[in-house]
């Protein structure tokens, strides 16, 4: 062939000899798993910085310990299992980071590390690793810690100093904690919460801008919302999840207030606790939430309902973690019901009957 055909002879001078052959499409989006994961991590940096400002270096220490423990666990397991080593893709670090964001800053570091190991080893890798887990690993880790160390997990140490070891021993309750305890005793919980801030205005400002006691992820709703909006803009998460979740909680919190119908404080419900963090970063976790938008709406509304139920009636002051874990249980079922749907056929019945 080659000697007969002049064009072939020309090829040798003209063209590169080797062509790679593959199935179409030949181009693809620049998004990759590491890029998505590290971007999500990056959007949490402002929150972390603010937390260090509020709580001191101890906050940073928690983040580092939790993140490292998660990454190392993933590395060890992947090495042991002999599967692709993706410990550096940011997903394990994100798990550790989010776990650090929803535990008390004063938690002993070995507990943090243990929670992080549990998150990655049991909640993620026992199920097959990234993409296969049923439960949000960070929240599973938190639930594990809360069940294992109930005292430490509900001890909120106020840390004003920037010294790493400055545990000044003063413990205070979170706003939701105060509300729960006071209500249990039959007091007017909201007034007591407001009293700790001075006025409702001051309370909401503190909650929004971030100057309250609690976990790292509870300190500043503003910074988390900014990060979340960026994720929505990047199309990493659907807007439906956070919006329906937050709306449900606010609505129920307002309608079923402690003093009777329509006496609740929706803004307080929205801004307190890890609700905003949960709404933007946990509820929308791609792996553990329903895959369709309609499914996510159901997921979010169900989650919001559970947050309200748990905050209002259950033993824990804060319901975000459990609400999301419980909805994670329902995700496969929601995915069974809300499957991808082709557009509605416009063929007339007789024509489209057999379609």
């Amino acid at each position, binding site marked *: 062939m080659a000697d007969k055909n002049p064009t072939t002879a020309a090829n040798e001078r003209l063209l590169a000899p080797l062509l790679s052959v593959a199935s179409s499409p030949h181009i693809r989006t620049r998004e990759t798993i590491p890029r998505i994961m590290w971007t999500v991590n990056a959007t949490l940096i402002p929150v972390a910085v603010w937390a260090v400002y509020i709580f001191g270096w101890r906050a940073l220490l928690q983040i580092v310990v939790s993140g490292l423990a998660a990454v190392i666990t993933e590395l060890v397991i992947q090495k042991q299992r002999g599967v692709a080593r993706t410990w550096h893709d940011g997903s394990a670090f994100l798990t550790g980071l989010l776990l650090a964001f929803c535990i008390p800053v004063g938690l*002993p570091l070995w*507990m943090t590390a*243990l929670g992080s190991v549990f998150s990655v080893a*049991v909640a993620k890798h*026992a199920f097959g690793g990234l993409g296969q887990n049923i439960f949000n690993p960070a929240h599973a880790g938190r639930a*594990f810690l809360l*069940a*294992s*160390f*109930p005292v*430490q997990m509900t001890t909120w140490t106020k840390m004003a100093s920037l010294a790493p070891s400055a545990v000044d021993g003063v413990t205070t309750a979170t706003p939701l904690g105060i509300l729960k305890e006071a209500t249990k005793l039959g007091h007017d919980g909201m007034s007591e919460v407001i009293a700790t801030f001075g006025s409702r205005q001051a309370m909401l400002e503190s909650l929004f801008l971030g100057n309250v006691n609690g976990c790292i992820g509870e300190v500043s709703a503003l910074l988390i919302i900014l990060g979340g909006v960026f994720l929505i803009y990047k199309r990493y998460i659907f807007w439906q999840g956070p919006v329906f979740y937050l709306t449900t909680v606010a609505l129920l919190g307002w309608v079923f207030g402690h003093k009777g119908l329509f006496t609740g404080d929706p803004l307080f419900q929205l801004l307190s606790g890890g609700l905003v963090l949960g709404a933007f970063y946990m509820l929308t976790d791609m792996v553990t939430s329903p895959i369709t938008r309609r499914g996510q709406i159901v997921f979010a509304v169900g989650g919001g309902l559970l947050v309200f139920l748990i905050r209002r009636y259950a033993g824990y002051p804060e319901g975000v973690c459990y609400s999301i874990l419980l909805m994670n249980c329902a995700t496969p079922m929601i995915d069974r019901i809300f499957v991808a749907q082709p557009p509605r056929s416009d063929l007339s019945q007789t024509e489209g009957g057999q379609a």
Partner: protein
Amino acid sequence: MSENQETSSALSPAEQIAAISGPFRGSKQTTLSGLIDDGVFGKNPVFVLALSLCPAVAVTNSVQTSLAMGLSVWFVLSFSNLFTSIFRNYINPKVRMPAYILIIATLVTMCELFMSAFFPVLYQALGVYLKLIVVFAIILARAEVFASKNKPIPAFFDGFGMGLGFLIAMLVIGVPREVVGSGSFWGRPIFGEGYQPILMIILAPGGFITIGLFIGLFRSIGAARERARAAARLEGAGDAMEVKRV
């Protein structure tokens, strides 16, 4: 119940139970070490046993309750096999299931009365789970599969062996759960003041997760041993196989 036999499918209830409880069988090993070896690492019936006796697992959050439960099951299993075997020729096959249940229930009630008389605290701790020994699939299954077809002495030792296997299973789960979850053994703290027990392990989630992790762990150890054994066999038979293949 007699109608059962005619109306239900070809499988007897015990077989049906066996079908959903997973395959369980007695260890072929006769020595204790062999039983443990085969049981824990080999075929792993420890956890299959644990599954077919599921409610028992609920009380494995302390060594004492685990032991009490394990001993009770050991007792009931051995003697139910013994009595089933003794009466096997007097029981009309049509009503054999109710008859077995009656035997087991009687033994369980004896056990219950004994416990409440001499160990009231343990009796309280075991609660409804002690009564539920009646419906443990494996006890009924051993009666049906083994005791009803064998002489009393072998039947007794069949139950004896299975019961021992179960006792081991209870302790394998129970000891780590108490040690890690309460930081104690037999109710006594063993790590000193500084240790913070991981409470979850003695709660229900901890029970499930511990068993799940144990199953995974033992199965991977078993698989590794199986691989090693196969490799050793292959080495020995390697030359012969090469010749054969040619």
